[in-house]
């Protein structure tokens, strides 16, 4: 028999970026709110403190900031013919755990999608027609436009404390910024971070080719910063421990540095850690949720938390899983194409070139997760899809993120992985390599989706979620296009050696090497209830008091890191709840 807690106005599942944002915004409405966080509590001191945090073996390799497979994982297969197996050793993607979620261990790369990416289907149809859209591609428009989202992107950037340089201020192109970005209503809250030598070298070469380099934007504080909640960041020291680590210096944008202490002061807000939500409970008529059942790790019992509004703000994979086990939205059927929950799972298509210089010193231990110079000359809105034979694009960036000895030791291909020759090569090449990365879009396809696994169960007896995912020719062609362009540029930089890593024709998804934790889709937004699980406000089409945040809302993945869009959408959802839903709870579309 489950224990029952006192009813709240709002229950929030997960206290990461979007849980903290929704918590703050709705607490300001005076609502009684409880957030349930599966993991532990954590704060800059003591959890991220120096020097314990900058332990590459513990956090970089053994992944101590991350979700454990024994807590929750997925099964994975590449196509319908395979039998999915549990993802037991985390490699390809790394969901976070604990208060702050992935917002604590990200690299800080914060971008807005391009306006064209928000309406990608319409953009393609207008320019090239349906003929260029591959048959199995679920190409769609977001049900909100860039212009509608602009105030919310702006709001998130000012809360999160993003450093950067605007390239398009109210339609005016600004020197030094990204000329291909969407219109910004004002400059970034902080000036851009300085750039390391590799980034400068790349920028010089890019400029010589006629491209338009600019300093990459990031949630890394270039100055001391105070945001609208009175929360604070301190200037970054470029120690190079961003991704997989919490920041010991209050410099990385995170729920801890930008929201949580302000939220904790709200008397109508509380949160419980080690409280894993197992299911969203429904009213008898099935049209609304009544609350959630969670597992209280401390008392080892199930607890029912009644609430008038349920906000699913956990990681994309967990959100979709919860929806599938709770019956939110009809499960997507990849064969018939019917259903919505689990549909349009997408990822990211990345590649890069590494260049070795015997006589260059890059000092790779100086860096940040969002360091460097970028170009957007091969972004979605700059490519003739009809001519190139794919839909998509990528931004490029060169800027070292760290010089950590275990994983950040680029060596020429063919170097032994251990032993005397490896040591010799490390001595020869450490600090003499730089790279350029291509960070590319990933479309949604009929074949890539999420559902419940028929065999494997989690520790609570729920079926694990099954991921069916493989690379598709469209995105691989995009990647090969980037390879060609990037190698051309890299050659002008005259390295002693260079090597490329771009997936190409026939590449199969491999879960072992880290790729990116940009898992998207599965509860996508849509203009009508047939195509997606939630409406433009993140409100579940079939249960109006459930709102869902995060990258699961992405109809297909953009060419950028997802956080800027995730944060913008969270403020968009919060605004809709505050201004439209609370006064008259109902389906908003």
């Amino acid at each position, binding site marked *: 028999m489950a224990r029952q807690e006192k009813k709240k106005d709002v229950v929030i599942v997960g206290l990461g970026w979007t849980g903290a944002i929704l918590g703050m915004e709705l607490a300001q409405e005076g609502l009684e709110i409880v957030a349930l966080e599966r993991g532990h509590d954590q704060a800059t001191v003591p959890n991220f403190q120096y020097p314990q945090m900058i332990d590459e073996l513990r956090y970089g390799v053994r992944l101590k900031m991350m979700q454990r497979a024994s807590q929750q994982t997925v099964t994975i297969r590449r196509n319908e013919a395979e039998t999915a197996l549990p993802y037991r050793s985390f490699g390809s993607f790394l969901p976070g755990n604990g208060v702050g979620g992935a917002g604590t261990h990200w690299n800080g790369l914060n971008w807005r999608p391009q306006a064209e990416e928000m309406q990608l289907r319409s953009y393609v149809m207008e320019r090239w027609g349906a003929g260029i859209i591959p048959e199995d591609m679920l190409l769609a428009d977001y049900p909100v436009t860039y212009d509608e989202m602009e105030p919310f992107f702006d709001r998130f950037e000012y809360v999160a404390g993003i450093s950067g340089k605007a390239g398009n201020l109210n339609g005016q192109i600004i020197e030094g910024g990204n000329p291909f970005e969407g219109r910004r209503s004002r400059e970034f809250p902080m000036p851009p971070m300085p750039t390391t030598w590799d980034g400068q070298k790349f920028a010089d070469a890019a400029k010589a080719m006629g491209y338009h380099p600019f300093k990459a934007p990031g949630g890394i504080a270039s100055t001391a910063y105070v945001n609208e909640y009175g929360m*604070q960041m301190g200037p970054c020291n470029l120690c190079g421990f961003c991704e997989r680590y919490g920041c010991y210096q209050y410099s990385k944008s995170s729920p801890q540095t930008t929201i949580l*202490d302000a939220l904790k002061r709200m008397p109508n807000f509380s949160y419980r850690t080690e409280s894993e939500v197992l299911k969203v409970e429904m009213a008898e008529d099935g049209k609304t949720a009544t609350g959630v059942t969670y597992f209280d790790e401390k008392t080892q019992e199930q607890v029912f938390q009644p609430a008038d509004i349920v906000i699913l703000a956990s990681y994309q994979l967990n959100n979709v899983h919860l929806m599938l086990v709770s019956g939110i939205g009809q499960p997507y059927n990849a064969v018939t194409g019917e259903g919505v929950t689990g549909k349009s799972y997408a990822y990211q298509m990345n590649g890069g070139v590494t260049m070795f210089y015997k006589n260059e010193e890059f000092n790779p231990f100086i860096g940040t997760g969002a360091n460097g110079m970028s170009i957007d000359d091969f972004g979605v809105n700059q490519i003739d899809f009809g001519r190139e034979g794919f839909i998509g694009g990528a931004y490029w960036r060169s800027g070292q993120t760290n010089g950590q000895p275990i994983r950040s030791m680029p060596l020429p291909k063919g170097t032994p992985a251990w032993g005397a020759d490896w040591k010799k090569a490390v001595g020869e090449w450490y600090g003499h390599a730089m790279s350029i990365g291509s960070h590319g879009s990933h479309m949604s396809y009929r074949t890539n989706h999420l559902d419940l696994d028929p065999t494997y169960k989690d520790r609570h007896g729920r079926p694990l979620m099954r991921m069916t995912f493989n690379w598709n020719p469209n995105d691989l062609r995009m990647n090969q296009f980037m390879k060609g362009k990037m190698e051309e540029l890299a050659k002008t930089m005259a390295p002693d050696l260079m090597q490329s890593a771009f997936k190409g024709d026939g590449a199969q998804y491999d879960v072992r090497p880290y790729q990116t934790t940009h898992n998207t889709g599965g509860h996508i937004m849509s203009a009508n209830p047939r195509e997606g699980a939630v409406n433009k406000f993140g409100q579940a089409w079939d249960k109006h008091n459930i709102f869902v945040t995060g990258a699961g809302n992405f109809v297909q993945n953009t060419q950028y890191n997802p956080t800027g869009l995730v944060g913008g959408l969270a403020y968009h959802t919060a605004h809709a709840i505050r201004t439209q839903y609370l006064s008259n709870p109902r389906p908003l579309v």
Partner: protein
Amino acid sequence: MSKSLRIIAALAAVGVVGGLAFAFVPVQTTAPVAQLPDDWKPAEGQGKYVMYASDCLACHTADGGEPFAGGRAIASPMGTIWATNITPDPETGIGNWTLDQFRAALYDGIRADGAHLYPAMPYENYRKLTEEDVRALYDYFMHEVPAVQNKVEETKLSFPFNMRFGIRAWNWLALTHDAGFTPADGKTEAEQRGQYLVEGPAHCAACHSPRDMLMAQDGVSVADANFLTGGVVDGWNAPALRGPDSAPQKWDVAEMAAYLATGRNIHSTANGEMGLVVEHSLQHLTDQDNLAIAAFLKGADGAPVEMPENFATLETRALPALDADDAGKETEKMLTEAAPDMALGPRLYLDNCAACHFVSGKGAPEIFPELAANHIVTGSEVSPLISVILNGAEVPSTAKRPMHLVMQGYADRMNDEEVAELSSFLRKAWGNDASAVTAAEVAAVRAKQPH
């Protein structure tokens, strides 16, 4: 003269005078400084506000205890004084106290039973409270604070300090000023309000004025020469709040007010005892009152006072770190060059401190305090600096700046010699000019800390 000798001398004097006084004069309590109608009622919230301004909570609440139920140990040179239960519980608190008895405690340091309070209770300052505030405070403690039955340990100081009547004689010597508040002439209303708060309820002089031969506050009013010229409390320097090098003179009124209300500003952070004052008292004051305090301190010795409209607003603010000032250039250069043979102190600074406090020693505005000309770094008392290095420091969450800002400790990372080298470096860096710290001093601070 050492502190113990001073105390003995003071006590000898107190003993003689006190003996005579005790023999010939009946105990008298001070009358109200204004006559209010019997049906006078404080405005809603006034009593609680005076409580915050007077910082009653911090001393009269034990760690983890019920508010105002007493039981906090207050270290004094004479031994441990146990803060009393001031909830309206009739048996263990002050529930049976009359208004006159309550006023006598605030003004004269006399309990309802006629016994003398130890001057850890800052009645030298509370003596300046207006009758309105006395009444409001009485009303608050009688009607708004929940009664808590909690018998607090009796304060038992060793002889001769256990002779409470001796305090009576001390009062004759120390408590010479009139009750009530006298505003300085020719000041703005805000400055006069600030003066009232500083001299009266906020009892700033209890720490920031030096102590005289009798261990009484040497300066309780702005007209007193030594008022707020700096004191030492429990091993912490309470810095001077007057004079050209004092914070109120170097900082503008808005930054001073921000420091009071949020425990941080573009220069510094409030740690130790001052952090507690911010947490329990000042952050609860209105913006106008914190500005008033800052304005009073700025103008106390005649400096012009420019009043800002507000401070520590929630407008987003990007503040670049500053370069070293002239006095700090040499240290900045040495740290920037980071020569392999540099001394241990600066090397430790680079390895542990520079990321936040920068080679400039200027820190970062509102978050990492300046170490150049920082009174904790350069104080005559070295244990606070050592303690911050070993155990870290924190600034409480406040309404206008909610971040609970924590500096981690380095006790596990540096041994006593290293902390001494680092501390000594800091005390000479960027134009700082204070004496070296020894490993023995570090060891003494380390030994005090619970592990």
